[in-house]
């Protein structure tokens, strides 16, 4: 067994140890409050090693679905979370019995849009509120309803919707929404490439990109590899990747660069060599490192072709 396989097995074992009795995971190792994002990333990571833990995770996800088809940020929460709904739709992929739940989630996603998609706010952002440079015609998904579109929830929604086998049965608008979402990502890019949360230029001044937001956005734009925005963003990520030391950003960078066929050996090696990986307090990061260490299968689970 190679070193990276040994590391991966150890991290998966740690992930399983952290699973709560309810089947979910908490955001931090020290916490017992089950949350959806770490559970989805853990379920995706465990999908590489199917077993009892994965089954319990999927049961937890099914039980926490809101009546309207969305999922909340954590068990006991009272609001719909767009990004966790997308993640859950992906985490429940390949399970035939859960198709109705996933479909309800997808329908909810289709009903959810950034506030700038509404004519009134579109008008406001065009006329009186122009400090942040963006085209309100190009909208995606918010973190949760009644706020504007942001890069990460839009990317996760595009990835989830791209996994649908067809756009039929009331989902005819999926291609339109995906296209708008892609346009929104291209519009919100930072001037020199890369993305942050979603504000490329504020008060006429460029805002710096973030490596993780950039990598996440690039995953949704894999089919647009030749677009200049995508190319400059891949270059930005390649440029800064070697300076990254935080596992969350390193893991996302590996997934994105692998998706674009760029060399990742050095980055991969630095991730494996990070000290105390099993002690990473944040469970989403731990799960994401597992996904990055098995990036080919992880990209497949995210519906990204490399």
């Amino acid at each position, binding site marked *: 067994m190679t070193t990276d396989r040994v590391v991966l097995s150890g991290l998966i074992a740690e992930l399983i140890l952290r699973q709560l009795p309810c089947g979910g995971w908490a955001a931090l190792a020290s916490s017992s*409050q089950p949350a959806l994002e770490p559970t989805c990333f853990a379920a995706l990571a465990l999908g590489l090693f199917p077993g009892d833990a994965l089954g319990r995770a999927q049961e937890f996800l099914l039980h926490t679905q809101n009546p309207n088809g969305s999922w909340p*940020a954590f068990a006991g929460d009272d609001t719909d979370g767009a990004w966790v709904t997308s993640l859950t739709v992906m985490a429940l992929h390949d399970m035939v019995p859960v198709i109705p739940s996933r479909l309800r989630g997808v329908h909810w996603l289709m009903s959810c849009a950034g506030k700038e998609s509404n004519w009134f706010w579109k008008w406001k952002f065009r006329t009186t509120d122009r400090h942040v440079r963006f085209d309100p015609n190009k909208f995606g998904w918010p973190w949760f309803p009644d706020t504007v579109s*942001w890069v990460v*929830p839009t990317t996760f929604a595009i990835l989830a919707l791209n996994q649908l086998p067809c756009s039929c049965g009331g989902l005819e608008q999926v291609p339109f929404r995906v296209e708008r979402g892609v346009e929104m990502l291209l519009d919100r890019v930072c001037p020199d490439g890369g993305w942050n949360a979603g504000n490329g230029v504020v008060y006429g001044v460029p805002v710096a990109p973030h490596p993780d937001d950039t990598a996440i956005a690039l995953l949704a734009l894999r089919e647009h590899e030749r677009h200049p925005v995508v190319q400059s963003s891949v270059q930005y990520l390649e440029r800064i990747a070697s300076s990254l030391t*935080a596992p969350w950003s390193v893991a996302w960078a590996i997934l994105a660069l692998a998706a674009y066929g760029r060399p990742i050996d050095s980055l991969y090696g630095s991730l494996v060599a990070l000290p105390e990986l099993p002690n990473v307090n944040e469970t989403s990061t731990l799960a994401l490192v597992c996904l990055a260490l098995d990036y080919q299968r992880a990209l497949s689970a995210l519906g990204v072709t490399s």
Partner: protein
Amino acid sequence: MRLTRRDFLVGSAALAAGASVSVPFLLPKYHIDRRPKRSRVAILQAARYSQELDHTLAAGLRLFSIDVRGKRVVLKPNLVDYAAGDAINTHPVLVLAAAESFRRMGASVVVAEGPGHQRDTELVLSQSGYQESLRDEKVRFVDLNRDELIRTPLRASYMGMKSLWLPRTVLEADFLVSMPKIKTHHWAGVTLSMKNMFGVVPGARYGWPKNILHWKGIQESILDLCATAPVRFVIADGILAMEGNGPLNGTPRPLGKIVLANDPVAADATCARLMGFEPDRILHIREGSRFLGNAAPSLIDQVGETVSAPAEPFQVVPEFRHLRATGVSP
């Protein structure tokens, strides 16, 4: 004078517009009055970030009667993002000096923050110099974006929300210390000890940035947060401040001061004066002075240096030029 129909319509429209802006702040929306009879603020001279800050800060804290023996002290710096050479974050040297001082006073200390723009908190910690410093000094850091959450009824209702999910670490703190960077802010005018409380709102529940607070009103959110998670003490980093297009893209501005206070409203009013602003023109300070603390100089015991407006007030984006105090050169 005779009013024409046109005058009447124009006047009515102006009145309605004025009312829509000011009425939200005319009606009391707070459930408690936390104003002390008098507040205390100390302005300390500090030219640079160095080990001398240990002594400066320890001496400054002795100007207040603070008893934190056996208490859980939570230091909440302003840690937003990192860009080399910029004055975005509260400097880690000051945060460590505060941690050391409170430890010597017998408290257990944690540093806690939930960055509003950067999702990778560990990256911000490592790039800003916090990670190494905190590890070396064995100070625990809590990522408020991912801490356990408790649904908390709000103790003021400016936002129109009944409750927020807030981090356990903040709610269970015995002594919450807001440690802002003194900066201008393109949406709020200034970001000081009260605006710094945006960082306690968890990204894992409300997203990055915490967009709901912008939609509910930044000034309103500041007031509701400060009413609900009371700041017990302020240590504001004005050694290297920021002016212009803050909080991220402003220009560093050396101010050479640390501001300590036992009242966040008094602290922010004093910082605003040091920036050359009129505190009453900053909505959350003016409204906060009705129930959270004291902004009037007559109610503030000033120790250390005296408050003096700078010869050149801090630069602000055009929307906030009205904050500049009368008599201060433009």
